């Protein structure tokens, strides 16, 4: 049931969770082994190190009481001052947002590939429960969902490389490297600014990693759609429709599909977090810019502000997607009791 009460409750709960993640990361800095200022400055060495540590001490306000510092930390996160990256000497928020959009583009495209395939496979199988196709699709989906993403991505890379596919690696070809857009999705930005050549190039570079990434949602979604569709087929109203002699295709489309929207939405919300991590792996194999690349360079330099920013940013996005999924579930499934 969707009600204003429920929406408000979810909204404040997610706000509370976001606050919680920010506070937890602050506690991590604060109770880390060693000097918090040293950690925040990225464990500097060399003659100028004391200056960096002094700057960090000033920024963190280490002589203030703890609750004041937590309040300042939370205030800074909400006003967009996330500190400066040690490695890149740039504001953390900009860096994280840019890499995150690169990873998000991959995730979104893999969902665009996966959802129709999984819906088709799941429906086909649910209508033929117990047949050979059912078994075959079951094992395929287990292999798809279970195999490590670097294996899938590596094999795809190998096949494309051997077949002479020239659009491997990077987000766009180096000749378009200066191309910048508003949203961070190169495929969308290029359409907005009317650069068809950039669009085609970035899409051809995006598709192989998105295909490799989409094996996971295909595997998981197919199985879940199969189970929940076959549960729906046992319901009274579907049986009634069958007994009235309505065409099988329209029964599936008009009576069964609306019933599984809530399940699929919930699942996509949950899968989102996992896919973001898998996207980092696939990016690594296909040598693309993105969150994984950013984080591994941040680790080498002990770039603490950047890592904190990346963790909090990802956590916030995950909380928001899960809340959205819950709301969609409440809209589509009026029977859910809250």
């Amino acid at each position, binding site marked *: 049931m969707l009600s204003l009460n429920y929406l408000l409750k979810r909204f404040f709960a997610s706000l509370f969770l976001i606050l919680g993640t920010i506070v937890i990361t602050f506690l991590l800095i604060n109770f880390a082994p060693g000097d918090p200022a040293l950690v925040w400055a990225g464990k500097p060495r060399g003659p100028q190190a004391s200056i960096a540590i002094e700057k960090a001490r000033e920024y963190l306000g280490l002589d203030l009481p703890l609750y004041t510092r937590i309040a300042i930390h939370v205030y800074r996160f909400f006003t967009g001052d996330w500190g400066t990256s040690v490695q890149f000497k740039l504001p953390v928020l900009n860096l994280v947002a840019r890499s995150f959009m690169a990873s998000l583009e991959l995730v979104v495209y893999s969902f665009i590939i996966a959802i129709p395939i999984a819906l088709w496979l799941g429906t086909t199988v649910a209508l033929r429960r117990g047949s050979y196709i059912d078994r075959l699709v079951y094992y395929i989906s287990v292999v798809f969902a279970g195999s490590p993403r*670097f294996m899938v991505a590596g094999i795809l890379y190998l096949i494309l490389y051997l077949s002479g596919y020239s659009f491997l690696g990077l987000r766009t070809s180096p000749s378009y490297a200066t191309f910048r857009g508003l949203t961070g999705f190169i495929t969308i930005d290029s359409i907005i600014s009317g650069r068809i050549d950039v669009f085609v190039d970035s899409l051809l570079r995006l598709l192989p990693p998105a295909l490799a990434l989409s094996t996971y949602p295909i595997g998981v979604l197919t199985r879940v759609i199969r189970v929940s569709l076959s549960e729906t087929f046992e319901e009274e109203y579907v049986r009634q429709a069958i007994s009235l002699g309505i065409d099988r295709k329209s029964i599936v489309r008009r009576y069964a599909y609306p019933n599984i929207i809530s399940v699929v939405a919930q699942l996509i919300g949950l899968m989102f977090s996992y896919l973001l991590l898998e996207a980092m792996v696939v990016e690594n194999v296909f040598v693309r810019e993105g969150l994984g690349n950013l*984080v591994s360079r941040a680790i080498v330099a002990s770039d603490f502000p950047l890592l904190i920013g990346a963790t909090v940013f*990802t956590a916030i996005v995950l909380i928001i997607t899960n809340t959205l999924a819950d709301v969609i579930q409440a809209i589509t499934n009026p029977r859910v009791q809250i």
Partner: protein
Amino acid sequence: MIRSIYVVVHDILSILSRTWRKRYSFRIASVAMTFVFLLAILGPHIAPYPRQGLGLDVDRSRALLPPSPEHLLGTDSFGRDLLSRILFALSRALYPSIVVAFVSLLLGIAIGSTATLLPKPIEISLSYLIELLLALPSVLLAALLAILMGGTLTSIVVALIVTWFPWYARIAYIQARNLKELDFVKLPLYYGLSKGYVIIKHIAPNILAPMLIEALSDMGSVVLEISTITFLFGIGITSIEEPDLGMMIAYSLRDLARAPWTFLAPSIVLATIAIVFTVFGEAIYEEHHPVLKKRWWLWF
């Protein structure tokens, strides 16, 4: 105490044997799982080239040899026998995942079952805390802890425990909440027995058996996650000589076109582990447990 241990073991054995009788895929999966564990224990002793497996011997003249009777899976870019490397890496991959799965299981059961008997405000705040921990991305948390703790395997294990135990806490909480309404939990509380006693004696033994199996089948995902982290960031190992599945794959990517076997062998091993554990768990849920049947809900 002995009696409750007996009850738990009996429950587990009966679940396993019933599934064994009914499911063909379960038999294959459990045999393969035993095989994986055996290989992990015996691996270092049966490896054909133990010194190469540990990364002590490096022979660049024999680099990237294809599979042959001498080297069953070929050699890597440093001229080391891949089979020995994988055998050494297996035990290194399985031990931390056992620790992660069972420590987070115990933590989860302790928190989940205690939460049901605590006062309402504490119960609600605990459930919010669990939801909060679930939102933290495990890979990034591992990276953070690696900076703080010096990039050892411990930092990965801690990060994974922090992100895995909320799932178990949630399952335990759901099950314990159902048990709370039953007479054998209510009556001792009315008699005035302490809540801790009731939890240990009456609640924990009843939810332990299915959750132990859950933890066992989750170990495949934990192995995968650990090797994903080492693959991405190279943390968790002390030197590049050390055998580790994630690092082996990360290094083999450079020779992907020239020597695909260096990439395929370790990743197929990883895939087999992950798939076998998944099939093992799934057969049991489908056969038995109504709570765990909707397992996709708890996958992540």
